[in-house]
């Protein structure tokens, strides 16, 4: 398996001179599987536009483009590039789009395709002539994607339903774990609070610890883990419940789970190249933390696991 990052940013694209090294596009990861380089795309943030252009220039020459797109969730920064993914305008293209939607929400097709309405965009979703199928995903311990590629999905902790993906092929594992923040005790823990309930407080702690362990088991032993790392621990303290993880937590969790390579991902849009370089020096200056190789994901970066 081979991974290429086309967008590593969170929240909103952040182009400009101060982000050119790590890149300003939002989430999009290309995964190539097997000898025939089967194409899997994870997330359709603004980075999918340049991926689409690359596919038009290369893959299309060898025949129709066929791909599976897995959306971690439907927040804007993860779907905004979809209307600009040129292959969907080519009639021979076949795309399957998988992803979760929050339980009370519209179907995936309406949430993602709904961006292509005249009020937002000059082409209506109904005008697309390519073959596009939307498939709703929930938590699932095993989905057989064919050709020996297997997938499992895990419900993460984000304000809307967000899934982590674990792709396994030929003994190698690529895992995504974003957007998410560590589960925490939501219940009142201060005994002097009139609403305090000891049993609830204790169970809240227990469940949070247990759920975080379940997430670590999900990415245990991964050859590559792409993890939410939007904030530093210090910044996170003021952003609890926003649905993102600190760099420190992501590294510690990957260490505990025996992850081989950790790509810190979903960089804050305000983070400059200089700051990311500085953080890289601070957190993974040696390139390693424990047994885990740690780096900040960068647009254009390729990780070859073959």
């Amino acid at each position, binding site marked *: 398996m081979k991974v290429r990052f086309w967008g590593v940013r969170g929240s909103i694209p952040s182009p400009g001179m101060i982000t050119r090294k790590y890149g300003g596009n939002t989430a999009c990861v290309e995964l190539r599987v097997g000898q025939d380089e089967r194409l899997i795309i994870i997330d359709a943030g603004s980075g999918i536009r340049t991926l689409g252009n690359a596919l038009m220039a290369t893959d299309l020459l060898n025949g129709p483009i066929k791909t599976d797109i897995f959306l971690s969730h439907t927040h804007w920064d993860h779907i905004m590039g979809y209307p600009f993914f040129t292959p969907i305008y080519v009639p021979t293209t076949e795309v399957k789009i998988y992803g979760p939607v929050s*339980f*009370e*929400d*519209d179907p995936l097709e*309406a949430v993602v395709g709904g961006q292509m309405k005249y009020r937002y965009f000059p082409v209506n979703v109904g005008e697309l002539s390519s073959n596009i199928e939307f498939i709703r995903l*929930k*938590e*699932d*311990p095993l989905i057989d994607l064919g050709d020996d590629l297997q997938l499992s999905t*895990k*419900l993460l*902790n984000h*304000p809307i339903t967000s899934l982590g993906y674990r792709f396994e092929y030929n003994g190698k594992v690529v895992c995504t774990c974003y957007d998410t923040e560590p*589960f925490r*005790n*939501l*219940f*009142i823990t201060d005994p002097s609070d009139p*609403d*305090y*309930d000891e049993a*609830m407080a204790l*169970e*809240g702690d227990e*469940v*949070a610890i247990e*759920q975080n362990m*379940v997430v670590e088991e999900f990415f245990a032993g991964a050859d590559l883990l792409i993890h939410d790392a939007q904030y530093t621990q210090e910044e996170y303290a003021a952003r609890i419940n926003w649905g993102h993880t600190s760099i420190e937590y992501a590294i510690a969790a990957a260490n505990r789970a025996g992850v081989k390579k950790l790509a810190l991902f979903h960089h804050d849009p305000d983070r400059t190249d200089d700051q990311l370089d500085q953080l890289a020096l601070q957190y993974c200056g040696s390139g390693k933390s424990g047994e885990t190789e740690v780096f900040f994901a960068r647009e254009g970066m390729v990780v070859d696991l073959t």
Partner: protein
Amino acid sequence: MIGQQSDYPRENMELNKAEQRKNIEKFIRRMPSLSTTVGKVMEICSRTDASPNELNKVISLDPVLTGQVLKLINSAYYSLVNKVTSLTRAITMLGMNTVKNIALSTAIIRTVSSAKRSKALPTAKFWAHSIGAGVSAKLLGELKGFSPMEREELFLAGLLHDLGKVPFGDEYIEVLNFARWEQRPLIEMERELMGIDHEEVGLMIAEKWKLNKVITGCISSHHDVDRLEGEIGQQIALVSLGNIYANILDHGYAGDPFPAEENIERLLDFVDLSMKDFGSIGNSVGDEIHRAEMFLQI
């Protein structure tokens, strides 16, 4: 036109009105009171600022409700890999909103089912109508700039507006037949044939169950176009419009296929919305109904 079809055998309906009323009053007296927990669940779940502690506490006070909520969370609909065995777990994993919505819908369905007496109105169709009315009232409330909390209350009031039809016995089938045969509003037929209508019966239940003022008002006055006033009048009018909308849409069935459509304009005037506004919710109603029905597992 009405007169032409009056050969429907009216003698079947020679019911003793006094007896009818007595039966219904007796039935309502014997109905269980609304459990305090369900009342509290309704209150907490329609508040946007409720804390996880409050939500957890109020649901766990009622073991049956707790069981139903967990059963739903562990259903194929959510398809979670690990079984969720406690509310604390459910709230941590799925978040407040999901658990709140499940608890509220479960509590309401259970509550209304406990009051049901006859098969006159098929349950699934009755709920479909109530959901249609609730969803329409909520969407109209959005047009009026109501806050999310007020809109939830409108949805709830719409869900419960026909509560008063629930205790009618099998003789109600005849009343429904007459309303359809004579193409007249159901409430008029109820008054004429039974001497008591679903607004009055609904009020008795709402008082017994101590439902809040807005919901009680919507149950007891959603056909009283002439007597609406003040802020609560606005909410009642929106639920009345929601009810008419669901009837026009022909979504579900609550026995009133010929509502007093001449009331639409007066109600719209009262809430200061145009006929165009009224029609504009059409785009979202279907989706919202679908969503609510999925959630209520109808």
